[in-house]
């Protein structure tokens, strides 16, 4: 029985030519080209210990066109947007914004890690904002649980009771008056942007 070995670095053939250029053309992401791979981002990131690729590796993978690897990674979704890396980067690379560009791309192409609750939360959140104009946190969390992990409802019963006891549980949707105006604006932003438009059409 031979020992199974696996190549840990990528093949040239795994590259998707042009991906780096596409990400670097997003406003705010231009500086990626000047990354010196120093690793300050990974060192300062409070979540890098949980990531499949460290932030430094993500910067290298994006720049080398390894699109599928980064878009399917958990790393971009574990980024909690604390902006520590962005503030510390000696090359002024807006790493948090690059993570956002990757998240948007992964959602648009539907390639985020399946059953991972973070992208599901992002999608449910944006749907609620589009239809109501505001977020009702307790209702959002219940929707997330139904979509991602219904067992979590039982694990969190104490939390729910606590919220009711402390008068923080809101069961009625918060909403704005001019919801049509907001929907019109979001549609206008979607035109020519290739992004998500009115509710229902894409989710």
């Amino acid at each position, binding site marked *: 029985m031979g020992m199974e070995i696996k190549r840990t670095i990528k093949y040239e053939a795994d590259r998707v030519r042009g991906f780096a250029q596409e990400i670097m053309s*997003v*406003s*705010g992401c231009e500086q990626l080209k000047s990354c010196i791979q120093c690793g300050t981002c990974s060192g300062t990131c*409070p*979540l890098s210990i*949980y990531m499949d690729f460290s932030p430094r590796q993500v910067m290298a993978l994006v720049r080398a066109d390894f699109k599928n690897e980064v878009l399917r990674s958990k790393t971009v979704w*574990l980024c*909690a*947007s*604390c*902006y*520590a890396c*962005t*503030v510390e980067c000696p090359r002024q690379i807006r790493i*948090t914004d690059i993570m*956002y*560009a990757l*998240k*948007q791309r992964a*959602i648009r192409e539907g390639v985020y890690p399946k059953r991972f*609750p*973070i992208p599901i*939360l*992002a*999608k449910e*959140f*944006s749907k609620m*904002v589009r239809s109501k*104009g*505001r*977020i*009702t*946190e*307790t209702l959002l*969390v219940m929707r*997330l649980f139904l979509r991602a992990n219904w067992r979590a409802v039982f694990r969190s019963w*104490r*939390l729910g009771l*606590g*919220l009711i006891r*402390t*008068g*923080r549980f*809101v069961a009625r949707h*918060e909403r*704005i008056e*001019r919801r049509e*105006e*907001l929907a*019109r*604006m*979001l*549609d*206008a*932003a*979607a035109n*020519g*942007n290739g*992004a*998500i438009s009115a509710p229902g059409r894409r989710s």
Partner: protein
Amino acid sequence: MKYSYFPGCSLKGLGRAYEESLLRVMRHLGAELEELEDWNCCGATAYMSVDETQAGVLAARNLALAERAGSHDLLTPCSACYLVLNKTQHNLADFPDVRERIHRALQSAQLAYTGRTRVRHPLDILVHDVGLDVIKEKVVRPLTGLKVAPYYGCQVVRPYSTFDDAWNPTTMDRLLATLGAEVVHFPLKTKCCGGSLTGTVPEAGLRMCYILLKEAVRRGADVIAVICPLCQFNLDAYHDQIDRRWGPTRIATVYFTQLMGLAFGFSPRELGLHRNFIPMKEVTAKAANA
């Protein structure tokens, strides 16, 4: 002093004690807040993960409504709102393509935005507009003997803050000292609490909260003071799960505005302190005895 007030969704929900205490304290100091008419969700981190332009439009609608209301300063207590609104200001100024797309969306609703609104955090307004000397005059029950760990979290100080340092902010430290409290040295004051990861990936999110709670206890703090509704919720509501995983770290987490209110003589209930999971008995008792 008059300000437009952008509460954000959380201050009407999980973070309503922040609104309750903020409004009382500001009124007590003679600052007038007018809630922005028909404000919408800022989009937070979640919408920005889905679509950057639409997230910018959500923020810009609020900025435009504030400008139309004729108010230059938009008081924004939630850290996520503060970051997103400020980020949109920067994007509008720095990137012509973003500006063009957002302006087109605003036009579709007969709105316009010229960039006059200033997004400001209550800490900034309290320390720089109202002033610590005025605040000190209002203190009737100094928080003498109360040891407070000042926890700022991430998104108010990074990367767009106009009023304090990204790693070692001191505005709240000075404010708490003015109330008579003993401010504990707390080097984790700007380490991320995990945000929504407490709910989505508890293995990571809850441990980040545990680290903060444990450190505050180890530094001898009686209470943690926060400036963000998500930080407050994370550090207050998950103690049963955190205790079960890593052992007890029982310490209350309150809004800095609640501590101000106590020092000004308001009752715990008027300040929404009854909404805490971890009760405030020790804190309010110390404040009352002082």
